């Protein structure tokens, strides 16, 4: 009897234990279910909002300048017209300033130096970014890691700081005096374009390799490197720099999928996207409410601000040379690079004024126009040969002066105090005066 009651008691304890255990486990299961529901909700949110590219917060410091005043040196101004300010007298002499910095490791156009009173700032295709004094002495240099294809853009300079993008996809802000890093932001897999400036923001084109070849334009605070906006992704790299119409608040740039984009610089919204005939590698030019662009189509076209092609010209060979405005005659001059040729086109109606073959099948460079004191008119400067640059009469394409440089120029010229600074394809930095 006693034994039976003990067995019953044990059975009862067992039952109580299992009920207790079941309740505990049910509680834990409900707890886990709550986690799971949260995870399902989060996954939906993640799919809707995740970034397809890597975005970094700023490095650590901020730009201590108020206001930040930046002058765009690449293509001479925000609208990328390539027109040099002031009146110039050139002797036509070239002086090498600094030894070989580029090894021609990558096919893209090499970096054009940025120059001001404090010195010369230039990147190399080997990943170094240099500061030189005006005599060509090295002040400092910084190696930008994982930049096997180097730095190809032109830095933006303010009084104390500079901004430059590199082929590791990072935009850097450095102190001009020491080269010290102020902030960095990792925007993508490569940056080959030059930064532009708009209302305290750095506007820059970015290239992505993952999830596939893609590109976008980003707006980053010049002060602290925080991301302001990013344009929706496009299905190809954007190597082209952004030309900016400050007064109207828009920018234009082209991508390797033939599309030209007009972007609202306050929001990053694409105002229109226009399909051209080929990859757009050059920087568009904004002049009198029109946008001019070359591409690999081959095509040179004028587009209205509303996104309509006003005229289009077959230029026979691919071009990644950015057009240069000759303001007094309203001409646009650019080169083609598979079959070296120079074109001069009327900005008004697209009529080709002249086209001339040049001895430079890699005429990827972009020229500049400047008012010559000697000739009392605007002249055009362009690498007419693989180792020479030419001073060209814009109205007929005649070569006024040929200056031997010894190296190929694939970038552009930066003007500062009656001197033009150049970074050569397989060489160093030289100055033309």
């Amino acid at each position, binding site marked *: 009897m006693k034994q039976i009651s003990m067995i019953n008691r044990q059975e009862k304890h067992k039952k109580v234990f299992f009920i207790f255990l079941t309740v505990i486990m049910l509680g834990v299961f409900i707890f*886990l279910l709550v986690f799971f529901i949260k995870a399902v909700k989060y*996954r939906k949110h*993640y799919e809707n909002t995740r970034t397809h590219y890597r975005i970094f917060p700023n490095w650590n410091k901020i730009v201590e300048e108020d206001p930040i005043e930046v002058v765009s040196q690449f293509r001479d101004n925000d609208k990328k017209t390539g027109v040099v300010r002031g009146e110039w007298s050139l002797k036509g002499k070239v002086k090498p300033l600094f030894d070989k910095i580029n090894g021609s490791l990558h096919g893209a156009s090499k970096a054009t130096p940025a120059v001001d009173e404090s010195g010369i700032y230039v990147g190399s295709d080997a990943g170094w970014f240099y500061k030189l004094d005006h005599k060509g002495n090295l002040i*400092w240099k*910084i190696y930008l*890691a994982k930049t096997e294809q180097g730095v190809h853009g032109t830095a933006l300079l303010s009084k104390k700081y500079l901004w430059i993008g590199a082929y590791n996809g990072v935009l850097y802000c450095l102190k001009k005096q020491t080269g010290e890093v102020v902030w960095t932001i990792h925007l993508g897999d490569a940056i080959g374009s030059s930064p532009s400036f708009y209302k305290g923001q750095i506007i820059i084109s970015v290239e992505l390799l993952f999830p596939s070849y893609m590109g976008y334009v980003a707006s980053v605070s010049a002060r602290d490197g925080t991301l302001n906006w990013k344009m929706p992704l496009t299905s190809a790299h954007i190597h082209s720099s952004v030309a900016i119409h400050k007064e109207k608040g828009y920018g234009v740039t082209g991508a390797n999928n033939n599309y030209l984009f007009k972007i609202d610089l306050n929001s990053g919204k694409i105002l229109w996207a226009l399909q051209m005939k080929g990859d757009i590698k050059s920087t568009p030019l904004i002049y009198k409410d029109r946008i001019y662009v070359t591409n690999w189509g081959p095509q040179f076209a004028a587009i209205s601000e509303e996104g309509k092609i006003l005229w289009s010209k077959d230029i026979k060979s691919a071009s990644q040379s950015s057009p240069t405005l000759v303001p007094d005659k309203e001409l646009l001059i650019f080169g083609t690079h598979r079959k070296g040729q120079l074109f001069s086109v009327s900005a008004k109606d697209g009529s080709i004024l002249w086209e001339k073959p040049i001895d430079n099948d890699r005429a990827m460079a972009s020229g500049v126009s400047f008012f010559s004191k000697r000739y009392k008119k605007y002249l055009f400067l362009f690498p007419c040969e693989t180792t020479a640059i030419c001073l060209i009469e814009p109205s007929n394409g005649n070569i006024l002066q040929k200056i031997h440089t010894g190296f190929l120029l694939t970038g552009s010229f930066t003007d500062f105090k009656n001197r033009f600074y150049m970074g050569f394809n397989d060489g160093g930095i030289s100055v033309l005066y």
Partner: protein
Amino acid sequence: MILKHYIQDQIKEISAYKSLRWYGFFLSLTHVVTFFFWHHNGTIYQNVIKNANTVCWPQIPFCESLRILSPFGVEASLYVYLCLAFFTAFIFLNKKFVTLAYWLFLVLNLIKFYFFFLDYLMMGNYHYMPFLVSFCFLFIRQKLFFIPILITSFYFFAGLLKISNLDWLTGLAFSQNLYFPLFFNEEVKMTLCFYIVCLEIIGSWFLILKTRWKTAILIQFILFHIMSYFFTGYFYPLIMLCLLSLFFLVFLFQERAVTSLHIKKLWPGVLFMCLVVAGNLLSFFIPGKEGVTGEGRLWGVNMYDAHTQCYSQIFLKFKNQTIQESFQSHAEYALRIKCDPYIDFNTVKKACAYYKDEPEFIDLDWSLYSKLRSDLEYKKIVNEENVCSKNLKYSSLRKNPWIKSY
């Protein structure tokens, strides 16, 4: 004398149970599998040889002085280790040789322990778990009682880690895995991930309860490990199958642990389990997600779901020159450690030591940005200027002030 008696007790206990002798066989086989893993993987030849320039464990900062073998020495030792593992496995099956098998098994673990602790890059869950089970097998009384509890605790803590970040429950830990069977869409994947968490946190306890569910749960764990082959390779599932074999052996030979409630018999096992639990709970008490910060996880299980993505930047500052030396963190390292701040901490320390006599060298700045796969943005984990002059220290037991909470 006490120690001698204690060890003799262990040997007696193993001799007394056929299931334990067979378990000795399977535990010895984990060393055979380890040999093939290390041998095929190949990293051991770069990590543990004399003058290897890799990363010491924080617990053994002097590991460089322990690296005494040449590549040939490592190769030869590994083959000795393999032969010994096979030999030990088979002699465990004969009751007469259990004493010899016991000592050889200890030697096997010491060899593995030596290689394992020569370099931090050798770390992995798949070593942590067999080490603990082997320790329990060698030195803890009431093995048939404590080993199942230990294995259950592995699953339980692994389950807890899986709910501590969203990578696992959202299924994102597997989102880019091409081997995942194609018919598993995202919803099925997420449901399976949730089921595995339930299995680990709730189901694992059935392994130590006398219920009819025990076998069903065990089979599910085995299926889970077989499935894990697609993500982790052969090593982890084989190790786990060896560890789980005890449950089958006990069932096969119809043996049960004779648990004595006498504290004298149980205290080593209780103490051991307390240490295991404390080690696993440590990371939960350190602020920040351990999957990203890596803090506290050296004493417990760490999970596959710690799928971190990161970038590190080191700026070496010289007079007139700055060099950004490292950028993308070590993609070549194992998933669990490639974003571990401790790895970069070592790189930084080595850079400081390397450049300290260079007159042009000023100092270096270091930042590390990390995110879990399910996070939308990178966060700053480390952001230190002039690191060399600060002389940063790393502790595996507490929060490091220079690692930001994530």
